[in-house]
């Protein structure tokens, strides 16, 4: 039964319904795969007891004939989600030993739907990073390797463990979160599908906060149909998050017709970056041709403020992070530094935060502190918020002009070597150049694998949709997925 972990959510759901397989068998297959894959660094806290207990309960519910789609499906949960009684430390030393007394709304919804939590997944510390190299647990590793190479590659970040686990078939799907590209970039680096919903679709309650106006949870899956199924189970209004939207969540799966005839797909000229690799350029034009063949109309569009998205993000996200991370003070939860004779409360704060946070987190907290400090608030923070309004206006205008979805590359390159970009934070930030605009404008975006580069590494395209229209977006992604026919899998070396 070792192959069961390779199933998609859709296949597993149908097999469970038919009685061809049990959730206990599926779950055991995943747990075996996880135990054999420590070299990937994907699962950082395994919860086999919770998993087997929930799997047995799911089997009973399925037998009763009244089970939601996610019932009995084994999934991994990013370490950023607070899960009751299971370690949840946002890959940070400062939350070492933290055992939440509560369950995040999103992981709780999955649990209530009968999904089986296998464990917690690696990530960049506090979701700050694009390579999963800032984690206190160490690196997560991409199951993909270049042809004839044994060089370890990044699975991307911040949801690197989630992407690695899904690509390596350690679980059927995983949760991710996306503040600037943290679902879509790792999905593109691992040949998987990653959906960032519209801001406000998923409750942020119980998810460790990074940048509250940008953070959004979403599914990371093997197929677009799986993203539709799991996404619907994660979304919905929650009174505990005042920014969560009180509108119905449609049956996304029922909207997957693959028919996109007459839809207008925008191709933004500003995403044709200088120095863009020819392979990415070709992937993009091939994807556009596929959508055209499927009956969509292509239209060249302009999003003139695109180049200002990353600099605006690197003001707004650190500003919000410096405020959100102020709570880690060694008083209420997590790590407290050992103090010297005579140390008072200020020394406790300063030592705890110096020892508990990693370098990138400290860097962003301090940048955020600076841009919010007296005398600089207007010049940096308020200016960035004005630029953010312009970036959103760019999208509003193209959607008003009749564009249904926008097609762009998901990343500027394929997965890169671990350790390669650590030295230069600004170089690392450029990974999010195609994804960050979507967070600033609060839009839904999805990464779909559509090809391989010359080294045999997966590459993905991004589709961006209108706000709240994840169903339409998923259908366009489904059409792209069908046309691209991406079926490659990493060769098992771990």
């Amino acid at each position, binding site marked *: 039964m070792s192959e069961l972990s390779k199933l998609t959510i859709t296949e597993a759901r149908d097999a469970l319904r038919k009685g061809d397989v049990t959730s206990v068998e599926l779950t055991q297959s995943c747990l075996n795969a996880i135990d054999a894959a420590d070299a990937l660094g994907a699962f950082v806290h395994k919860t086999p007891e919770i998993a087997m207990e929930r799997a047995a309960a799911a089997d009973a519910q399925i037998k009763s004939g009244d089970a939601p789609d996610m019932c009995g499906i084994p999934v991994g949960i990013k370490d950023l989600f607070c899960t009751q009684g299971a370690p949840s430390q946002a890959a940070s030393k400062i939350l070492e030993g933290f055992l939440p007394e509560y369950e995040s709304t999103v992981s709780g919804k999955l649990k209530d739907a009968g999904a089986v939590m296998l464990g917690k997944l690696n990530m960049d510390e506090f979701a700050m990073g694009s390579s999963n190299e800032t984690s206190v647990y160490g690196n997560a590793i991409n199951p993909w390797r270049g042809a004839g190479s044994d060089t370890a590659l990044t699975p991307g970040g911040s949801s690197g463990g989630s992407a690695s686990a899904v690509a390596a078939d350690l679980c059927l799907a995983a949760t991710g979160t996306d503040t600037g590209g943290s679902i879509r970039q790792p999905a593109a680096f691992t040949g998987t599908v990653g959906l960032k919903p519209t801001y406000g679709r998923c409750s942020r309650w119980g998810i460790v906060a990074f940048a509250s106006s940008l953070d959004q949870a979403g599914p990371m899956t093997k197929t677009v149909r799986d993203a539709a199924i799991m996404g619907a189970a994660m979304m919905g209004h929650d009174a505990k998050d005042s920014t969560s939207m009180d509108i119905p969540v449609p049956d996304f799966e029922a909207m997957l017709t693959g028919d996109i005839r007459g839809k207008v797909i925008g191709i933004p000229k500003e995403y044709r970056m200088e120095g863009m690799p020819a392979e990415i350029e070709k992937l993009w034009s091939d994807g556009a041709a596929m959508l055209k063949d499927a009956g969509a109309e292509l239209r060249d569009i302009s999003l003139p403020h695109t180049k200002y998205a990353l600099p605006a993000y690197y003001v707004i996200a650190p500003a919000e992070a410096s405020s959100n991370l102020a709570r880690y003070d060694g008083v209420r939860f997590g790590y407290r530094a050992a103090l010297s004779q005579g140390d008072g409360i200020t020394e406790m704060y300063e030592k705890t935060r110096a020892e508990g946070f990693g370098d990138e987190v400290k860097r962003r907290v301090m940048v955020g502190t*600076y841009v919010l400090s007296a005398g600089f608030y207007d010049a940096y923070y308020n200016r960035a918020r004005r630029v953010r309004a312009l970036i959103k206006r760019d999208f509003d205008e193209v959607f008003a002009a009749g564009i249904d979805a926008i097609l762009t590359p998901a990343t500027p390159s394929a997965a890169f070597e671990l350790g390669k970009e650590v030295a230069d934070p600004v170089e690392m930030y450029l990974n999010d150049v195609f994804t960050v605009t979507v967070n600033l404008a609060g839009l839904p975006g999805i990464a779909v694998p559509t090809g391989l580069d010359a080294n045999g590494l997966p590459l993905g395209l991004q589709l961006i949709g209108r706000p709240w229209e994840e169903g339409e977006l998923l259908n366009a992604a489904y059409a792209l997925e069908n046309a691209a026919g991406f079926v490659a899998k990493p060769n098992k070396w771990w």
Partner: protein
Amino acid sequence: MSIDIETAAKVAKLARIKVEAEDLPALAGEFNAILGFIEQLNELDVDDIEPMTSVTPQRLKQRDDVVTDGNQQTAVLANAPEAREGFFAVPKVME
């Protein structure tokens, strides 16, 4: 705007993160690299643009101003590095 060592020390203090004196020059250098990247925002004329407060045009929901939760002292203190007699315990705050 260039950040000197003194400013870097001030920011670290404001953020309540201890930074050793010998690490301040490197920190100031990193700040300058990031702020240099951010400087591009000055190319835009944004005088007539309102700063964005919410990306979705919705009024935040309100609820009745009543107690909805409470009596969870044990759960609240369960993760404290140090708790005593129902309180969080910290080093002395005042001389």
